[in-house]
């Protein structure tokens, strides 16, 4: 039975454009016992991990989705006619980190943390749908409040906000920088 279920889950992930969460799979496959789904999903992931295929199932933004394997990037790009991939600018990355760690946050709070007016960068990030407006703060002027989106998670290959670089990773980077200078 589990084998059939595994194939069904595979087809569901295949057809999903957005990462498909375990909850959603269970919701769709309500006629199967939840425990069997819990078993079949890792099985499926295992199958893909073990086989040498061009595609794989990755876990991102709290769900599962098909993607090509990174080593085939040059050929995929050739097919899609994409020479150079666009990257976020340094101010954009900086602003995103501020929002990611301090959300929900307002524009003036972001600007205060960076000590730089961030309104333009914020607009770009909104257009790229990496952040969203979630409401207004109940303070003078009722400023808009921003949060990162699911697209943000997918873009950086994070499963959830808990996957953001930890305090240790950050201090490691800071430590490395110091070492470099001492050399």
């Amino acid at each position, binding site marked *: 039975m589990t084998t059939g279920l595994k194939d069904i889950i595979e087809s569901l992930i295949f*057809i999903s*454009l*957005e990462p498909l969460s375990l909850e959603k799979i269970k919701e769709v496959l309500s006629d199967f016992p939840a425990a069997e789904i819990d078993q079949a999903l890792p099985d499926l992931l295992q199958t893909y991990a073990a086989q040498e295929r061009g595609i794989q199932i*990755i876990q991102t933004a709290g769900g599962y*989705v*098909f*993607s*090509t*394997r*990174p*080593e085939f*990037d040059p050929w*995929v790009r050739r097919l*899609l006619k994409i020479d150079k*991939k666009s*990257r*976020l600018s*340094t*101010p954009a*990355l*900086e602003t*995103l*980190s*501020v929002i*990611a*760690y301090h959300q929900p946050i307002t524009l003036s709070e972001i600007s205060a*943390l*960076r*000590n*730089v*007016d961030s309104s333009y960068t914020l607009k770009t990030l*909104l*257009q790229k*749908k990496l952040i*969203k*407006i979630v409401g207004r703060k109940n303070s003078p002027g009722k400023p808009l409040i921003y949060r990162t989106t699911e*697209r943000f998670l997918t*873009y*950086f*290959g*994070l499963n959830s906000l808990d996957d*953001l*670089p930890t305090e240790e*990773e*950050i*201090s490691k*980077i*800071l430590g490395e*920088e*110091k070492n470099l*200078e001492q050399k």
Partner: protein
Amino acid sequence: METSESYQVRLEVFEGPLDLLLFLIRKKKIDIHNIPIAVITREYVDYLEHKDKINLDREAEFLLMAALLIYIKSQMLLPREEPLEGEGDPRRFLVNQLVEYQKIKAASTILKEKEEEQSSFWRREVLPPLADSDEVDIIEVSLFDLAETFFTLMKRKEAENFRVIRGKNYSLENKMKEIIAALEEKSVLDFLEYFSQQETLEEAIVSFFSLLELIKARLVMAVQEQLFHSIKVWLRKGPLARKER
């Protein structure tokens, strides 16, 4: 970056005053928690004087920091009965800011690596359209999405060279009635399509306001079947309104 002449670095290299301060602190191998304000202020002001290109927008932010540094120094020069330590240290505020900023910078370096890493994972971006069904994953759109779509449309219209016909007045009330009538007939309107049918800019704007009014009055709702898809307007009393939790 040139090393021969003191600070022939372009202003654009630094994201802001904190970025520059951190650079100077590292360069001088200063302990961030015990900054010799006089030294760093001199370095900082020196940099501002030597930079070759002035970006007026940013200039203000950089100057504000210079003022803050001088203010801190002046505070530290004032005679006190007790030595300034811990919370009372006038440098405290700046140090906290610098420490936090340092973390943000480090975090964005990590994010940059992740971005690079992720860019070689390709996912399918298009799917064959789903058949119409009640099960579509509907996202109710925000005002921002609506406005953005509207502006895109206006830009497109602008290119077509709008001709304004005078002497015709559009009222919100009539437009609202018109939209409702159209919805009752067709049950769903395509946001972009509807606006491209408008004859004049004025009419389009009045329609947009009417639509916003209707959404506010919770008579209609604007939904998007999927991210980046066209926005559709529904009448709220339909089966969809009931589906709402």
